[in-house]
């Protein structure tokens, strides 16, 4: 068990390290001059060279990589190329919470929604709730996030979008988890505002996981509902609710966890599009803008952050999986 954990964690770190080095090096092979982002319509050759030297871009690649890793170890990702004086680490502190809140809310919508429709579909198997739920699930995976976001914005045009909180609120929070922080400090009217703003993007982001969860719940419920012990339970007079809640649902937990793990990558990908459409100030839109403007300092820092988030959430899910399914513990040890 501990050995497995150790190997798994080491593996995660190595994955991240390799990924970051790859990104770092491949960026340096990209055509085009990276410091130009600053010069715009007024480039001056001597100044461009001075700027390259200042950023250390003129040194051999291996020296640059070494410097980057050294600074990384100290928790410093450097300054943005495009916006002078902007520390990338500070920016990530603002951006990552936005993405985490969005992903969290999307899952908060997706999990209950998916489970409820899945259970309903399984219980009324081959009757209209089943068809309705499965049709919805199909539409959920087929409508692209960007089109859905666009539709939502136009249908619910009285819902606020484009910001995490109303524009007139001066953002003086302690952390950048506006929603979590205001719930925890008991500022419920603020939390309400934050929820209102996160609603549409979270909804757009939640459809694909919701659809996946719904389908997986349905199929594992179908398997379980026909099992012997459930027939026994029902014969003993357990209500439907008790059967589903107490017996069938826990069994569906493992495949759901499995699909969630698979979905996290998709959620982060979806976040790039969702954040861009809804102007959500998270990691996805930050990185997208940086790639567009070739602000490579941000690209390498941001990519590192996303890879870390992805690898560690997968690690976390692996652990959950291990905790949920005792059989695995035995298998992994042997």
């Amino acid at each position: 068990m501990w050995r497995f954990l150790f190997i798994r964690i080491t593996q995660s770190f190595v994955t991240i390290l390799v990924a970051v080095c790859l990104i770092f090096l491949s960026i340096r092979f990209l055509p085009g001059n990276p410091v130009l982002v600053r010069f715009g319509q007024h480039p001056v050759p001597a100044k461009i060279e001075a700027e390259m030297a200042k950023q250390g871009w003129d040194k051999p690649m291996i020296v640059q990589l070494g410097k980057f890793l050294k600074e990384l170890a100290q928790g410093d990702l450097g300054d943005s190329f495009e916006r002078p004086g902007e520390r990338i680490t500070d920016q990530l502190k603002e951006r990552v919470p936005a993405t985490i809140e969005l992903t969290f809310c999307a899952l908060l919508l997706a999990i209950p929604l998916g489970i409820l429709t899945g259970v309903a579909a399984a219980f009324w198997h081959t009757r209209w709730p089943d068809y309705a739920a499965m049709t919805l699930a199909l539409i959920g995976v087929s409508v692209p996030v960007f089109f859905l976001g666009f539709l939502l914005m136009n249908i619910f045009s009285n819902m606020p979008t484009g910001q995490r909180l109303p524009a007139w609120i001066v953002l003086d929070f302690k952390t950048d988890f506006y929603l979590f922080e205001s719930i925890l400090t008991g500022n419920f009217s603020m939390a309400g505002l934050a929820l209102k703003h996160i609603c549409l993007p979270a909804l757009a982001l939640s459809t694909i996981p919701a659809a996946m969860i719904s389908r997986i719940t349905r199929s594992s419920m179908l398997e379980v509902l026909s099992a012997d012990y459930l027939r026994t339970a029902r014969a003993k007079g357990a209500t439907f609710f008790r059967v589903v809640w107490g017996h069938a649902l826990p069994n569906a937990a493992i495949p759901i966890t499995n699909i969630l793990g698979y979905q996290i990558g998709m959620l982060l990908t979806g976040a790039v599009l969702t954040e861009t459409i809804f102007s959500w100030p998270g990691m996805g839109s930050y990185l997208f803008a940086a790639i567009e403007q070739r602000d490579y300092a941000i690209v390498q820092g941001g990519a590192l952050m996303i890879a870390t988030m992805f690898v560690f959430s997968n690690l976390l899910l692996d652990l959950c999986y291990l905790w949920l399914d005792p059989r695995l513990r035995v298998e992994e040890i042997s």
Partner: protein
Amino acid sequence: MRYYFQLRKQLNMQIRILTLCCLGAMLFTLGCGSPPAPTNTLIYGRGGDADGLDPTHTDIGESVKVIVNIFDKLVDYDEETLDLVPSLALSWETSDDGLVWTFDLREGVKFHDGTPFNAEAVAFTINRIIQPDHPHAYDNVIPFYPNYEGIESVTPIDEHTVQFKLKHPSATFISNMAMFPASIVSPTAVKIHKEHFARNPVGTGPFKFEHWKTDQQLVLAANDNHWRGRPTVDRVIFIPVKESAVRVKQLERGEIHIADNLPPSEVDELAKLPTIKIQETEGMNVGYMTMNMDKPPLDNLLVREAIWHAIDRDRLIDVAYSGHATKAVSMVPPTMWAHHSGLADREFDPEKSKQLLAEAERNAGVKLPIKLQLFVMAQPRPYMQRPRQTVVFIKDSLERVGFDIEIVTNDIRQHFFRMTQGEHQLGLAGWSADIPDPDNFLYTLLDLDNINDDGGNNLSRYRNEEMHDWLIAAKSELDVEKRKQLYLKAQESIFRDAPVLPLVHTKVRIAQRKELSGYKLHPSSMVRLRHSKITP
């Protein structure tokens, strides 16, 4: 079976709690009301965020919008016109040879951090721009250095008098002093914050910087001690929202007071709402297509004329600007004093275009169809509000008369960089005036001095020695009428040689809530918010 029961025990509680929490959170959302919005805060919605707020080190429009509210300059534009009026300087005088300018400064003005404003501060500010190794210029990017390189030195005479010495007489010097890079910065603050001054700006302006979260909000507060008096609004919040569709919705819902940089057709629709007011002014800009004369067959006048005749610019204005632009014939916009209104346009005439190409094929051995790359920027600009629509229209038009066009899209900065290197054949470009002077259009965009691989803005690589002499003469000519004659001649020769196809001069339009009054769009497109007032 045993395994199953084990599992059930573990999971039951957790799943139940989780589900209940989810349901609780959902119900909670629906039940919440919102606290009332403060009434005296102006919210400005725009398409992007500032990059830095140090006036010396930026040329990004979104930064400038903030900078002009935090800082003052020695001279400024009148509230409504382009006339220059005193600001931090009370008065100024020129020596007879035009080389020495003496400014008499306003007394008793203080920067937001309490530092007194004086001649030293002025010298400090200008020296940061013009001295190559100034100890307090922390950034290599000084976009507007060329505008100020004609300044020899800046000397404080006494506490409230400062003297500028120029290398040669300059007709544009005083206009340059009204431009934002000459905003006077607090020397103390620059020395304290160093390169982070760009995120902690301190000036003397009507608003002081409060805080800035990139891509979320930038907050300014009223400066109680401003020498013009305190602004009416308590706060100004700039919020960046990239999607223009979202900005439209926010304005409709009243979440923001002003939305700028909207697509023209959306502004027309907003104008129909009773709560919305549209402001419009003729912009000092030109959107044009450059034809790189170093790349054959574009060195051939017949080909360039054929391109000119092939494009119906009136229709282009309908398609890409919803009719809100003026057809351009000269590069100098009609709002400017040296605009040449007498040029006879090369009318839209595809047949003529085909004839010219046939002639070029006969005489110069040009092969038809002519394959050309057309460069286009990915992001909209005030002079090119819908680059995608524009480029598609031009491609379709040119392919009808015998061209074969390949579109090359790039991020705006890469786009301009590649074009200054001369990589393009055709390219969409444009210019918004830095200062209201024809020199800023003709010399900057078409003089042979500005051809080089490192940032000359003569993208067409147009070489005209004769015109060069006129433009240089006009630079140091102080008599406006004589200058005008020189610029008119220059415009004629540009029209004759057709190194560029001027497309449009656009109007600058913003949409605002009716609650907001007192803010007027300025012809220089400067966003000065000090008179704005909000009446709920």
